[in-house]
């Protein structure tokens, strides 16, 4: 015994017409892809095309300019026989981890402080942001002086009577890389702060209220609700910082010039100098390929997990 009313049969004149897919409809459906296409095409050519070109170059004998004479793995062999290269990679590991970690920590910390309805926000915000505005071509000099034991902080402390004060990392080959971290953090953390602040400002206030009612302390609210909600911002910050860490060039050149010795050599300075000042373009390309492979190894799994988890 069925209780569901049967669907009445369609009357002949009511036979539905399937809406023909007109060109305009096709266009509408394709529109999002059309909008994205130019960007993607440009990226394909100017990034991936160039990567392929670089890979090819690394197998040639190019020195001052690209030549297309096959050189096999010679460039890679040379690359891996350079002690500088090992130093550069080790430095990148130290620098990258500290720089990204500290920038995110400080950036988030300041952003959270700034989000507490601070009176002087308009004054403080530019103070934390301005280092990004200054080119390292010049701030490098200021930092160099500031960190130099004979001119800067240590000198001032001695003048002030604190004779035992020591801060000579800049000239100490074992510590110099950390001064690069300090200057790098100074430069980029403000921007990270801005990203986090934008993220914080986008969070629905009701949710925070709910958490307060749930008895969460301010710290717990940040730890459990807000920071997890800022997850996409962490992704952005990570990408921005990772790319800056990998590309850091000005910073090192202006601050230490890669020294003392080769203590602050980074893959980017290595690559630049081999490509453009040492006239070993093939080796430079090989180092670029190694860098890209390293980046792939780190970024791709990260991206994969990050992008996949969003929409289970």
């Amino acid at each position: 015994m069925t209780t569901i009313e049967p669907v009445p049969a369609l009357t002949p004149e009511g036979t539905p017409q399937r809406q023909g897919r007109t060109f305009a409809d096709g266009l509408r459906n394709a529109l999002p892809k059309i909008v994205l296409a130019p960007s993607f095409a440009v990226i394909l050519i100017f990034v991936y095309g160039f990567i392929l070109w670089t890979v090819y170059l690394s197998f040639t004998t190019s020195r001052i300019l690209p030549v297309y004479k096959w050189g096999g793995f010679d460039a890679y062999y040379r690359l891996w026989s350079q002690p500088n290269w090992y130093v550069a990679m080790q430095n990148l590991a130290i620098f990258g981890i500290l720089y990204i970690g500290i920038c995110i920590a400080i950036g988030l910390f300041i952003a959270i402080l700034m989000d507490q309805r601070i009176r002087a926000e308009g004054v403080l915000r530019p103070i934390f942001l301005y280092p990004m505005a200054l080119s390292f071509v010049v701030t490098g000099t200021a930092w160099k002086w500031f960190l130099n034991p004979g001119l800067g902080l240590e000198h001032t402390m001695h003048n002030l009577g604190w004779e035992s004060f020591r801060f000579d990392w800049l000239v100490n080959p074992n510590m110099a890389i950390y001064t690069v971290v300090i200057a790098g953090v100074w430069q980029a953390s403000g921007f990270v702060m801005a990203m986090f602040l934008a993220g914080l400002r986008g969070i629905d206030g009701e949710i925070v209220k709910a958490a307060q009612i749930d008895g969460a302390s301010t710290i717990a609210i940040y730890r459990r609700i807000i920071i997890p909600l800022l997850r996409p911002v962490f992704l952005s910050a990570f990408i921005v910082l990772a790319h800056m860490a990998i590309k850091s060039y000005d910073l090192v050149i202006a601050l230490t010039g890669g020294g003392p010795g080769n203590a602050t050599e980074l893959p980017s300075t290595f690559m630049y100098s081999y490509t453009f000042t040492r006239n070993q373009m093939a080796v430079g390309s090989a180092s670029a390929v190694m860098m890209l492979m390293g980046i792939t190894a780190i970024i791709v799994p990260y991206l994969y997990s990050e992008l996949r988890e969003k929409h289970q």
Partner: protein
Amino acid sequence: MSFLEIKNLRKKIGNVEILKGIDIDLEKGGFLVLVGPSGCGKSTLLNAIAGLLPPSSGDIVIDGQIVTDLHPSKRDIAMVFQSYALYPNMTVEENIAFALEMRGVDKASRETAVKQVAKTLQIEHLLKRRPSQLSGGQRQRVAMGRALVRQPRVFLFDEPLSNLDAKLRVEVRAEIKALHQNTHATIVYVTHDQIEAMTLATKIVVLKEGMVQQVGTPAEIYNRPANLFVADFMGSPAMNMLKGRVSDAGGQQGIVLFGNETTKVAMPPSVTADLADGKDVILGLRPEAITDAGLADPQARSIARIEAEVTMIEPTGSDTFVTGRLDGASFTARTRSDVLVELGQKFPFSFNLDKAVVFDPQTTSRID
């Protein structure tokens, strides 16, 4: 000819099948109310009609045109979202006018239209505010306004009045009714409010877990529920379900209720079939059909008087609901609010069997 047809519509999200083959049709100018328990797929169905969620299979036909693949903006539909979905960057006025603007209506006409709608919804003083500066009910009214300002082919309303106070709700309800009557708009409406469903609908569809349970006019749904689910779901407090057994004893077919074997109640007139003696049945009786003796319908053909112990008394102002116990099974009666009744008392209830329906406990369907 039906104006809106939904044919064997299915929707899967992930592994869950949310709509399991829905078939509905609605004539032009019809007012379809969708009801069903929370999470049964009402919003999903509205979204599919609007074109916001592509169905997994099945078709949607509006006015003879298969729109299943048509873009939402081309369907000429207005919708009120359960979650409001107001544009945070626009004022109330701009929110309401937006759809008109998109359709190229000129500024002056837009303004008149917005004024008009705002007046109806009593939000004239809020026109310059942003959604974040409104109370819940005010937001909901803005969402309403966004739909009412238009003259689409179909209106879709998803619980549009849930956050309004009763008085305002009555007023807006009347407004919707007037809109429907004056413009002959075709409307699909989701609500949990029985009064809304009963007073507005020309047709009610009861959904459960993505399947249609019954389609009918409000009176059919209320008085002749197709099965136990519909009977239980529509009406508040719910229909009383009393277990019993068919008894032919004494020549006339009747029902003996478990827990009160002595009283045999007459077979309700809604049952025309001849039932086997001893068959288990469920007798369904709405609370308003069980009253104190004073309130009993004097014109009723068959009334059973049954004494039962009072276990709960709930005054609602206009009435008092009295819960009685009949050996394990309890039932709710609606009585006058000033009835004299006490907890624990043996109270004589009048059961108006004219209004009763009978269900088969096995199939859960109604027995005619």
